[in-house]
């Protein structure tokens, strides 16, 4: 059934359809609409779940960890400072191999206080052991949240479903909301790998000395390395039931492209518009939308980029010093490739500043004229 939904509510709908049992969250703009809707569902009985109104994001993740350890499907949502406050427990959730799903609405970190779109919050959590999936449309948000539960419960790792602040979280789009029976077919009841059980008492998350710790971490790495393969299977099953698929990356006009833009999130839509304009002028240019950031889909990226000459990366984030984070990942990905396209790194759209078609045209023009990438990421759209 198609309905016009806010991006945030696409998450809420998916969490309801997933028959999530425990939701624990703390408010932070621009994530609040997600959990407000879920509170409503719990209150009006359209969802059979317990909503814990915790006193911080740190406690939100801690209670998800408690509930998931006791063997039920859990959910939280956060943004920016809330996610940063959770940081310790993001490590804990992944280390405990708990299939927690979180919606992360990309928002800038202060100071100065800024509630708008920026990828620095989620990308700062890249080493916590969470799978990270970036979305572009409200439909993709709903679909990815359902897939996230399936994937998390196969590999026993937590998943962050990431969506742009306001551009996606507060924008209304037509969304096909699946019926419960179809979702139940795609996402069966949760069977936990290990749970707190009096019949078989065990200690979860206890002290692990040097003789054991390294193997535990290795098992997380093995699980993470298996994610891509499982994600493809999950997407295939999803497509069978719902007829939609996205892929770990979504290439557009890349087959003969001599230059390829790469980015995540809603700016991919804007970039496709710019690519159409450039194609009309005869430029061989394409765009890859990056959905999966952790684990990084190296094979897909290499296959798509190794024939091209220039890779143009747009980062709506900055690791102060090295610059754009996606650009660093792409350099690392392409280094092991036989072919080495040049990688041009651009930073724009921080703290909610618009990234327009004109910006992409400017970026393309600048890249076309350059023989080699500059050493540092180039900032686009700075005020003079």
């Amino acid at each position, binding site marked *: 059934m198609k309905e016009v939904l806010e991006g945030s509510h696409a998450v809420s709908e998916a969490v309801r359809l997933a028959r999530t049992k425990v939701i624990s969250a703390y408010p932070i703009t621009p994530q609040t609409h997600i959990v407000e809707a879920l509170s409503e569902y719990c209150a009006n009985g359209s969802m059979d779940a317990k909503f*814990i109104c915790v006193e911080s994001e740190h406690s939100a993740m801690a*209670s998800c*960890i408690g509930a998931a350890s*006791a063997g*039920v499907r859990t959910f939280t949502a956060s943004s920016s400072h809330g996610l940063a406050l959770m940081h310790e427990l993001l490590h804990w959730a992944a280390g405990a191999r708990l299939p927690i799903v979180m919606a992360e609405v990309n928002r800038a970190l202060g100071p100065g206080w800024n509630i708008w779109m920026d990828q620095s919050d989620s990308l700062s959590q890249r080493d916590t052991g969470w799978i990270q999936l970036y979305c572009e449309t409200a439909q993709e948000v709903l679909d990815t949240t359902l897939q996230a539960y399936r994937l998390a419960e196969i590999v026993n790792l937590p998943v962050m479903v990431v969506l742009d602040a306001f551009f996606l979280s507060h924008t209304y789009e037509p969304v096909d909301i699946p019926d419960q029976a179809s979702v139940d077919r795609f996402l069966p009841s949760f069977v936990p790998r290990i749970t*707190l059980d009096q019949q078989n*008492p065990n200690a979860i998350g206890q002290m692990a000395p040097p003789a054991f710790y390294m193997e535990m971490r290795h098992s997380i790495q093995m699980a993470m390395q298996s994610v891509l393969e499982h994600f493809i299977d999950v997407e295939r099953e999803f497509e069978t039931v719902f007829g939609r698929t996205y892929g770990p990356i979504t290439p557009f006009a890349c087959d003969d492209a001599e230059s390829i833009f790469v980015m995540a999130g809603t700016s991919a839509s804007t970039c496709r518009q710019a690519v159409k304009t450039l194609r009309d002028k005869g430029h061989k240019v394409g765009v890859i939308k990056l959905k999966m950031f952790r684990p990084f889909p190296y094979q897909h990226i290499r296959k798509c980029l190794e024939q091209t000459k220039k890779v143009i990366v747009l980062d709506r984030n900055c690791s102060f010093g090295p610059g754009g984070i996606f650009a660093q990942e792409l350099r690392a990905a392409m280094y092991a490739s036989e072919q080495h396209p040049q990688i041009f790194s651009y930073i724009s759209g921080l703290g909610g500043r618009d990234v327009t078609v004109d910006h992409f045209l400017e970026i393309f023009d600048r890249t076309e004229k350059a023989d080699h990438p500059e050493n540092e990421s180039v900032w686009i759209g700075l005020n003079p």
Partner: protein
Amino acid sequence: MSKTSQETISGCIMSSKYPSTDYIMPGHVACPGCGAVIAMKFALQALGPKTILVIPACCWAVVAGVHPQTSLKMPVLHTAFATSGAAASGVRAALDMKGDTETTVVAWAGDGGTFDIGFQSLSGACERNENFLYVCYDNEAYMNTGVQRSSATPYGAQTTTTPKNAWKSHRKKNIIDAMAAHRIPYAATVNIAYPDDLMRKFRKAKEIQGTRFIHAYASCPTGWRIPSDKAVAISRLAVQTNLFPLYEVENGTDYTINYQGNRPVEEYLKIQGRFKHLTENDHAEIQEMVNEDWRILNGKAS
């Protein structure tokens, strides 16, 4: 006249009154004379097997066993330092959703994890009146990390972060008053030297719905610099000097004092290495503080 109930209080263990089942296995790695282990032993005997423990970073995070062993015959969720209240809330919520209303969820945290870093999470859980039992075993400093001061460390004590003449010059936080202010259904103090009182309170707490809080005095021979065979005797003195009164608070307002002590606090202070540096004047000052706290407590119970 204060409201008191002394009839069940004795410092002796009447063997017939105690269950023979033990839920702690031999070979745990606590220090000799550890009061926190004695507290856990009696607590679990009172609570019985339908219990899930949530343990944050604290001595018990180690005592409960290093992978792949466990010293407890109960499921244990180890959780991050500041999270006991929230993690226990999550476990409770999951059990409720699974239809298990019988299991008692017990958060078992030290004083650092309760008075300090875990206080926000605990306060949040109390305000929501989460249905679990929170136990703070209080050894009055960060013992697991090597005896650093906490806000449960008493006035006058030396620790590794309040060393020598810089001994702690701030009073211990009154955690029961803080809990009572949340108007939770039950808060009580217990002491390992009074096991019958301890077990009665754990059994009582088990039957109450909502957030229950037990403040368990747990002597620490290592951190307090006392002989391990004096762990219980010194604990008893804490009650008999009114330094750690045994009392209960129902619904945040209804105070019952379980024991009236009358011994001078000096007897308690003089036999512990952590208080060795204190002068007679310091003893007198601490006696005044104890008297004042005791008057306030009796006022609440009257």
